[in-house]
């Protein structure tokens, strides 16, 4: 497939996730488009340095946001793979320098993949007073045979802010293995959010881990998973309070629909400093009866009410 068609196919698929294709043509908006092990689109803007390196089986991207810089528009990252079979490895090394501010809109699109493994590793450093938001949305083929492994290692230095949201709600999952490690230093704030809809025989493993290593660090790890049909979902969320006055909350909501669904959630809270405070909440099971009956009392069937509630949960 030529580069132009690859570009068009990837962008067209990303549009299904709600992205505006014109953003990739706008020179004011930084972007990188990866297809297989090639970079087929790249736009740097002032204050940002994106340096891609082609690997045998993927792409490594080194990214740096300069000190005291605020990137005015979200950086668009689009990773695609258009073959039916194969392996793709992407490594993102991102450093947000002191007091810089940046947002990312990321899309991973694998619309035709059948026997395909996507391996993503992100290493992120948020320096003192810097802020970063990363919104990652996936579009997979409906084969349900994709294997997706994604590991994020983030360190947020003093007074930094980091938010990461992972969404895989619009298509089949396949096999998903998400690991997010977040280390928060003094006064740092970090949020991890994963929303996944698993259907048919999809398999989902999510592990979000918060290390509160600095005084007054604040963290939130939240997972919302809808398990349908005969999917299997395992969520393990952990928080470690290692510094005084650090606080974290971990939350897991797993909604099931289907007699063969297997879901589990395990929270782990551990404190090594008695001035730290950790909390958790978890719910697992069918859609809440009161919610269901509220919508049914307005005329929706149980099925319609369940679908509407699930749709809301996954937004």
């Amino acid at each position: 497939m030529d580069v132009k068609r690859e570009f068009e196919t990837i962008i067209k698929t990303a549009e299904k996730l709600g992205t505006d294709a014109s953003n990739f043509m706008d020179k004011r908006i930084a972007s990188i488009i990866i297809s297989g092990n090639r970079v087929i689109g790249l736009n740097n803007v002032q204050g940002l340095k994106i340096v891609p390196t082609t690997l045998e089986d993927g792409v490594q991207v080194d990214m740096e946001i300069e000190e005291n810089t605020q990137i005015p528009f979200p950086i668009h990252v689009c990773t695609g793979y258009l073959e039916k079979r194969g392996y793709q490895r992407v490594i993102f090394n991102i450093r947000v320098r002191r007091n810089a501010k940046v947002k990312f809109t990321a899309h991973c699109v694998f619309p035709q993949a059948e026997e395909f493994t996507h391996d993503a590793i992100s290493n992120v450093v948020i320096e003192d007073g810097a802020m970063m938001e990363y919104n990652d949305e996936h579009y997979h083929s409906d084969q349900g045979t994709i294997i997706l492994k994604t590991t994020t290692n983030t360190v947020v230095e003093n007074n930094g802010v980091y938010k990461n949201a992972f969404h895989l709600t619009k298509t089949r999952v396949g096999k998903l293995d998400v690991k997010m490690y977040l280390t928060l230093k003094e006064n740092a704030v970090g949020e991890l959010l994963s929303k996944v809809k698993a259907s048919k025989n999809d398999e989902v493993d999510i592990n979000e881990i918060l290390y509160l290593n600095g005084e007054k660090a604040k963290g939130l790890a939240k997972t919302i998973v809808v398990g349908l049909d005969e999917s299997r979902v395992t969520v393990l969320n952990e928080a470690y309070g290692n510094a005084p006055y650090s606080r974290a909350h971990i939350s897991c909501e797993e909604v099931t629909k289907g007699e063969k669904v297997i879901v589990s959630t395990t929270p782990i809270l551990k404190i090594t400093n008695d001035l730290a405070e950790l909390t958790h909440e978890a719910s697992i099971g069918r859609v809440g009866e009161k919610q269901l009956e509220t919508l049914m009392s307005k005329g929706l069937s149980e099925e319609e009410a369940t679908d509407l509630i699930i749709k809301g949960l996954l937004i």
Partner: protein
Amino acid sequence: MLELVNISYKTNEREILSDISMKFLPGYKYAIIGTNGAGKSTIGYVIMGLSAYKPYKGRILLDKSDITDLSVSERAKLGITLMWQEPARFEGMTIETYLTLGGKLNVQKSEVIEAMEFVGLNPALYLKRFVDKTLSGGERKRVELASIVLLKPNYVILDEPDSGIDLMSLNIINDVVNYVAQYGGTPIIITHREEMAYNTDYGYLICAGKILFNGTTNDVLKAFRGTCEVCEHPNLPRSEEMK
């Protein structure tokens, strides 16, 4: 006409409603009055057919048809709805989606906007807000009142509609109640506050799951003041008080 005939309901072997018979006529406004724990809300839940509130005795009739075994959805399709005392919250669902039931309710956007304005919710500010924990109790109740305006139910049970809301909102509740009665619907207000019952025509006074008294709202309120408000044995009615 909606009719409860000798309804009895119990949970964990405890009798909550005993031999309740009520009639609700189209176009009239009703109040179900009683102190906390009398069983008022349970009557509402039984009428709506909530899964945990199936009576073990008695029938519910709608225009003489037996609806006792119908599901919540089926009753709703026949024009019965319920506004909970503490309405449920929905993460990620906008007020617009909620009011249109995700597009399933056949209403125009202009009607949604009109209904929101009717209950004092500025559409510009609220249409895209989520029906989640970020709404205050009063805001959430207004959303529910807007839903009633759009649904135009034949029978609407309002369970303690004034709880957790400000005085100004009382007028809005009364406006919605009047609106329902004007088009020939039947609002049924469950309350333990006299002010809330003033705007109704007929009432039932409930004590310990039994009907203590029924009649015009004025008479029922007199009975409420004369018995329940001065009662030293709440929810333990004595035979001489049963009329």
